[in-house]
C-alpha cells in the first residue's frame, strides 16, 4: 500500500510526459519522435516540420497542460471550500462569465488584442462567481445545501444564453470565436501563451501555497481557527487562485467544462488521500488529461478537428453518472 502511494505521482508524471510526446508527434502531419526532437532542439532547422513542432504544437501542448492543471486544481479547491463534491468552475458561473467577458471584449476595438484576453476572462469569471454568490446571499438561510448549485446553474444558463445571443447577432465577426466557445485550443499561438502562462503559473503557485492547509480548512471554521489558521483569509486565497487559474484556462482553451469534476473524482477512487495530496496529484493528472484530450481532438476524425471541450464533456458526463451510481 505504501509503495502504491509513492508510485502514483510517478505514474502520473510519466503519463504527462507520454501525453506530451503523443501530442507533439500526432496531427495532420504525423512525424516520428526523432523528428519532433530535432525540431525542438535544432536551433537553425528551418524545415516545415520543425516550424510545425516549435510554433504550433509546442505552444498548444504547453497551453493544454497549464489549462488542464489549473482547471483540475480549481475543482479541488472549490470542492474543499464549498464542501460540495459537485463544485467546479463550470457549475458556479466562472466559465460562462469568462466566455461572455471575452466575447464582449471582442466588440470593443481597444480590448481586442490578446493582451486583454486573460484580464477580461478573469473579470468575467469573477463577475459570474459574484452573481452566484449574490443570489445565494439574497436567498438567505432558507435555501439549504442545494442552493449554491441551483444558483450556479441558473447563472450559467443565463450567461450562456447571453453569449449565444451576442455571437448570433454578428455571426461573421465571431466566426473564429465559435470554435473557441466550444472549448478548443485550435489556433493558439505563441504570443497568447506568452501572455497567459505567467497568470496560469501564478494561480497554480497560489493554489500550492493554500494546499497544505486545505485539509484543516475542511474541518470547519472553528476547528481551523483553533489550529491557528485564519479561515476567511485562506478561503479568499483559494478563491483568488480559482479565479486566476480558470481565467487563464478560458483565455487559452475556451470555456472547457468537467475537467474540475472528472480528474479529482477519478483520483479519489485510487484510495484515501488528504486534500493537499489530492490537489498536487490533480495538477499532474489534469495536465496529462487535457493534453491527451487535445491530442485525441486533433486525430479522432482528422483532418477535421473536434474541440477538446466536447471530448471532456463526452468523457466527463458518463464518468460523473458512474460516480453517482457508485456512491448510491
Amino acid at each position, binding site marked *: 500500500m505504501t509503495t502504491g502511494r509513492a508510485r502514483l505521482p510517478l505514474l502520473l508524471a510519466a503519463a504527462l510526459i507520454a501525453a506530451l510526446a503523443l501530442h507533439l508527434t500526432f496531427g495532420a502531419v504525423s512525424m516520428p519522435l526523432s523528428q519532433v526532437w530535432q525540431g525542438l532542439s535544432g536551433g537553425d532547422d528551418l524545415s516545415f516540420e520543425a516550424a510545425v513542432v516549435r510554433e504550433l504544437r509546442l505552444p498548444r501542448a504547453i497551453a493544454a497542460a497549464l489549462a488542464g492543471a489549473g482547471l483540475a486544481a480549481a475543482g479541488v479547491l472549490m470542492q474543499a471550500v464549498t464542501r460540495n463534491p459537485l463544485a467546479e468552475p463550470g457549475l458556479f458561473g466562472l466559465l460562462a462569465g469568462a466566455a461572455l467577458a471575452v466575447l464582449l471584449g471582442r466588440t470593443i476595438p481597444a480590448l481586442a488584442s490578446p493582451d486583454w484576453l486573460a484580464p477580461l476572462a478573469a473579470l468575467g469569471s469573477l463577475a459570474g462567481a459574484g452573481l452566484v454568490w449574490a443570489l445565494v446571499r439574497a436567498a438567505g438561510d432558507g435555501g439549504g445545501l442545494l442552493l449554491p448549485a441551483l444558483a450556479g446553474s441558473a447563472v450559467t444558463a443565463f450567461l450562456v444564453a447571453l453569449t449565444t445571443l451576442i455571437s448570433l447577432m454578428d455571426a461573421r465577426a465571431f466566426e473564429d470565436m465559435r470554435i473557441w466557445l466550444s472549448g478548443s485550443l485550435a489556433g493558439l499561438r505563441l504570443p497568447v501563451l506568452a501572455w497567459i502562462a505567467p497568470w496560469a503559473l501564478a494561480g497554480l503557485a497560489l493554489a500550492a*501555497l493554500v494546499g497544505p492547509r486545505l485539509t484543516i480548512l475542511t*474541518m470547519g471554521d*472553528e*476547528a481551523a481557527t483553533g*489550529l*491557528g489558521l485564519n479561515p476567511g483569509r485562506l478561503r479568499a486565497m483559494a478563491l483568488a487562485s480559482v479565479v486566476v487559474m480558470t481565467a487563464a484556462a478560458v483565455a487559452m482553451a475556451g470555456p472547457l467544462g468537467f475537467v474540475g469534476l472528472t480528474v479529482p473524482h477519478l483520483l479519489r477512487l485510487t484510495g484515501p488521500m*488528504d486534500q493537499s495530496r489530492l490537489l498536487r496529484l490533480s495538477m499532474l493528472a489534469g495536465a496529462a488529461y487535457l493534453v491527451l484530450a487535445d491530442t485525441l481532438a486533433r486525430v479522432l476524425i482528422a483532418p477535421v478537428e473536434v474541440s477538446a471541450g466536447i471530448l471532456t464533456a463526452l468523457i466527463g458526463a458518463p464518468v460523473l453518472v458512474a460516480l453517482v451510481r457508485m456512491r448510491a
Partner: protein
Amino acid sequence: MHSGTSAASNPGYETGSGAGLIAVRSLSVLRGGRQVLHDLTLEIRPAALTVLIGPNGCGKSTLLKTIARLLPPSSGGVSIGGRPLDRLGGREAARAMALLPQSPVLPEGLRVRDLIALGRHPWRGLLRSWSPEDDAAIARAMAETGVTTLADRPVEALSGGQRQRCWIAMVLAQETGILMLDEPTTWLDLSVQMEIMAILARRAKAGATVLVVLHELNLAAAFADRMVMMKDGRILADGPPDAVMTAETLAAIFGLSADILQDPLTGRPVCLPRGTRV
C-alpha cells in the same frame, strides 16, 4: 523524558509557568443583537479541570468560543498568560491553547495518524519540515487516548467513540498549556464519556488548564475540580463540586428538584433528579 530545549520538545502543559492562566475581565458579548454574556469576570487556572455548565442558552458555549477567539467581545476582554487575546497572532494563540469544537467536520481520506498529525500544524512553518518533536507529540497523544493500535485505520471507518478519541488526540498533540472542549461527550456511550473525562483529568493533573463545556451534571461532578454554573449569561455558582452541587443551586439554575447524595467511593456529589420546579 523530555530533555530537549526547544519549546516544541517540552509539552506546554508541563512548564508550570503562568502561561496557562486564562483571565476574563468584565466580558460582555452580543450575538445577533442580543446580549448573551453580562459583565463576566473570572480566572481559570492551570492544573485543574474546570467545567462550564448550565441550561441551554445560558452562555457557556459563548464564553468558551470567546476565549477561543471565535467570537469578539463587545466589551471587556480575555487574556492568556497575561497577554490580551487581541495581541496574539493566530499561530501564537494556537501554540498556547487548543480547541475541540462541538461538531468538527471529519476531512475525507485521513488515517488516524494523519488526523492527529494535523494538531501539530501551529508548530510547523511553511518551510519547517517534520521533526522528531512532532513524532513524539503524536505518539504521546495516541498513547494517552488509546488509539495507537488504530494508527493506520481510516478515521471514517471507526465508531463514534473511537472517532472522538482521535479528535481528542489531535488537540492533545497540539501540546498547549490550555485545552478547551465544547461538549466533547455528547451523543457518546457512557463508557466512552468516562474514558474521555479521565483523559482530560489526567492532562489537568499533569499541569494543563482544561476548560470543558458539559451538559451532564453527574459527569461534571465526578471529574471536575471546579464547576462554573451559568444562567442567562451570568455566573451563579462557582467552586468545587461538593460546594456548588446543592439542591438550592440546582433549583435556581436548572429549575430542577433534586436530591444530592454522596458517592460512597469517591466522596463526590451525585444528583438524583426528582422533578421540575417551575
